[in-house]
């Protein structure tokens, strides 16, 4: 599936340029451009404090940008945030529904706030599809982490928004719940809902149609998720065998090697310059018990590479 080819003619759901947020002396988000086509799953990646949450909040009108302009769902991001709010579902990083209301009361409140018709019916359907209908009179605060996430997603979906902003929706959720969560995301995307999701997990990143990598408030790279790694031009070798701990230490000290990371029983050795990298690993290539294979760089290596470059720029 090539999402960009079929959706290219349509106006993008989010089209913002130069979005900037300043807290006191600190520029938290610095001239951020973002173009999200309709129906795409767009992943925001980046370390903690890189400005992912701030960017999401600016798009849904929860924060006022100091600079920049653009549209979201065809409305002006700065001037028409009231209009945008009616069409956007925003799931906060921290559980932000009312813990002292029951599950049903929370959903009912949200439905009323959006002025939805057939309120009782919608809430009932949401409860049933959540699998919480039997527990609807339980206080939301007593739910476990995974259930809270599901309830929150269900609540921000209640008004059938065209755009979903999900801020680290799977943080602290067990693998099974995470998988189910992503299945829901893809179902929604197939129905034409656009989804902007921030995450820390690489296995989630690869499930996105597009990825933007953010660090220190700046976007380092963006594009279709399959093309990111090759865009960066990083070479990687995989090595398997005994004594990887010592090898890892030795390789890290060798010029030409940028990063060495352990993946299960193997090491991934990467560097930006292919020739320099091969020269660097040459002394170990002939070792009998070590198996060397060249591989395509993964997203994780790509992002660690980006982070190192940025750090150098900032230093």
């Amino acid at each position, binding site marked *: 599936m090539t999402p960009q080819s079929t959706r290219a003619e349509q106006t993008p759901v989010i089209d913002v340029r130069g979005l900037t947020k300043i807290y006191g002396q600190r520029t938290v988000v610095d001239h951020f451009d973002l173009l999200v086509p309709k129906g795409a799953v767009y992943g925001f990646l980046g370390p903690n404090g890189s400005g992912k949450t701030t960017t999401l909040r600016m798009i*849904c009108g929860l924060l006022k940008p100091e600079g920049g302009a653009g549209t979201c769902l065809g409305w002006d991001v700065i001037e028409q945030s*009231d209009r945008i709010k009616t069409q956007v579902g925003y799931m*906060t990083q921290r559980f932000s529904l009312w*813990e002292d209301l029951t599950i049903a009361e929370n959903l009912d409140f949200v439905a009323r706030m*959006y002025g939805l018709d057939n309120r009782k019916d919608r809430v009932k359907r949401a409860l049933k599809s959540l699998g919480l209908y039997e527990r609807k009179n339980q206080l939301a605060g007593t739910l476990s982490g995974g259930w809270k996430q599901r309830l929150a997603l269900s609540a921000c979906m209640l008004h059938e928004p065209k755009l979903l902003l999900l801020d680290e929706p799977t943080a602290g959720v067990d693998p099974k719940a995470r998988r189910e969560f992503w299945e829901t995301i893809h179902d929604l995307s197939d129905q034409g809902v656009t989804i902007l999701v921030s995450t820390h997990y690489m296995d989630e990143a690869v499930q996105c149609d597009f990825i933007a990598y953010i660090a220190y408030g700046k976007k380092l790279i963006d594009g279709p998720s399959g093309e990111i790694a090759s865009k960066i031009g990083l070479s990687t070798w995989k090595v398997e065998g005994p004594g990887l701990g010592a090898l890892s230490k030795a390789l890290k000290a060798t010029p030409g090697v940028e990063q060495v990371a352990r993946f299960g029983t193997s090491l991934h050795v990467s560097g930006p310059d292919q020739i320099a990298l091969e020269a660097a690993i040459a002394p170990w290539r002939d070792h009998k018990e070590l198996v060397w294979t060249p591989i395509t760089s993964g997203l994780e290596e790509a992002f660690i590479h980006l982070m190192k470059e940025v750090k150098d720029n900032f230093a």
Partner: protein
Amino acid sequence: MKSGYSLARISAILTKEFIQMRRDRMTFAMMIGIPILQLILFSFAINSDPRHLPSAIIDRDHSAFSRAVVTAFANSTYVDFVMAPQTPEEAEKAMLAGQINFIFEIPEHFGRDIARGGRPQMLIIADATDPSAASGALAAAGEIINTGLAREFSSALAGLATGPPPVDVVLQRRYNPAGITQYNIIPGLLGIILTMTMTLMTAVALTRETERGTMENLLAMPARPLEVMIGKVLPYVLVGYIQIIVVLNAGQMLFDIPFEGSRLLFFWVSTLYIVANLLIGFLFSTVARTQMQAMQMMVFLLLPQILLSGFMFPFRGMPGWAQAIGEVLPATHYMRLVRGIMLKGSTRFDLIADIWPLIALIVVISALALLRYRRTLD
């Protein structure tokens, strides 16, 4: 790690508390501000022996003697003559509206009768809704008259200075003839109870959402500030009604408090007062960042509401600046309204001067709160 009590741990906690205390500017300001406020209010504003109480004088005599008596009262500083009405009705209207505390009436031929030794009567009508406001002046009345007349006697009629008092002072305590303090306290207490509870309820309204993280959700939904404000304020109006019913019934059962005026009018002015207090609380919660700060602001407002509203001490006995502050507090107007309706049977025409300030407060506070309401998380 030591398992027993450790001085190091105590000092660690102690240091942490000090750091947090210093960071919380609002708490710090309150710690300094509240004692200073109390000191100023208690020492300067409050006067348990009230002076300069506004009064009316009806002088039908216009003799040297009547003028001497009027001058003596004015010089005593107990009263200030603010009006000289032609008819008693005019004076009583002013008293119903709470504009004056005393009416002095000097009959015709007052001077002539004194000169003849006829002991003419002089009428002093006191608004006794607040017994403590009236008592000082009334206790001193006889002495003031004697002193004032003494000067006249010394010149021409020295012989009259001796013997029984030359004037027969007739006292009338209006609205609360027995001088029962509960009659005054209970309606006032109603105002204080309402201001305490109502302001507190809404003061934490928004800060609680912020502290629990639910504000982010609320703001992400398409809610307008006015919608949030009305939705947050209205439920507590009912709570206010319940409190009123409880206090009124208790007052009637325990102290037999009279209720002279219209209950409907009472209901309306109480609604205004409850809404004004709820809005003040809501305004606080748009300014404060935490529930704690909101509560501190409430205490900060509560002090002047108790001390300067005429609840604890006679309003007219306070210095001008304190009265000026008192005039912008909702409790001040509510005290007058409730005391007027319950004890004097005042009508809405008598009380209009205290009704419109409450309406004005509601408008101003709503506007401020809506201006302050943050629609973003900035």
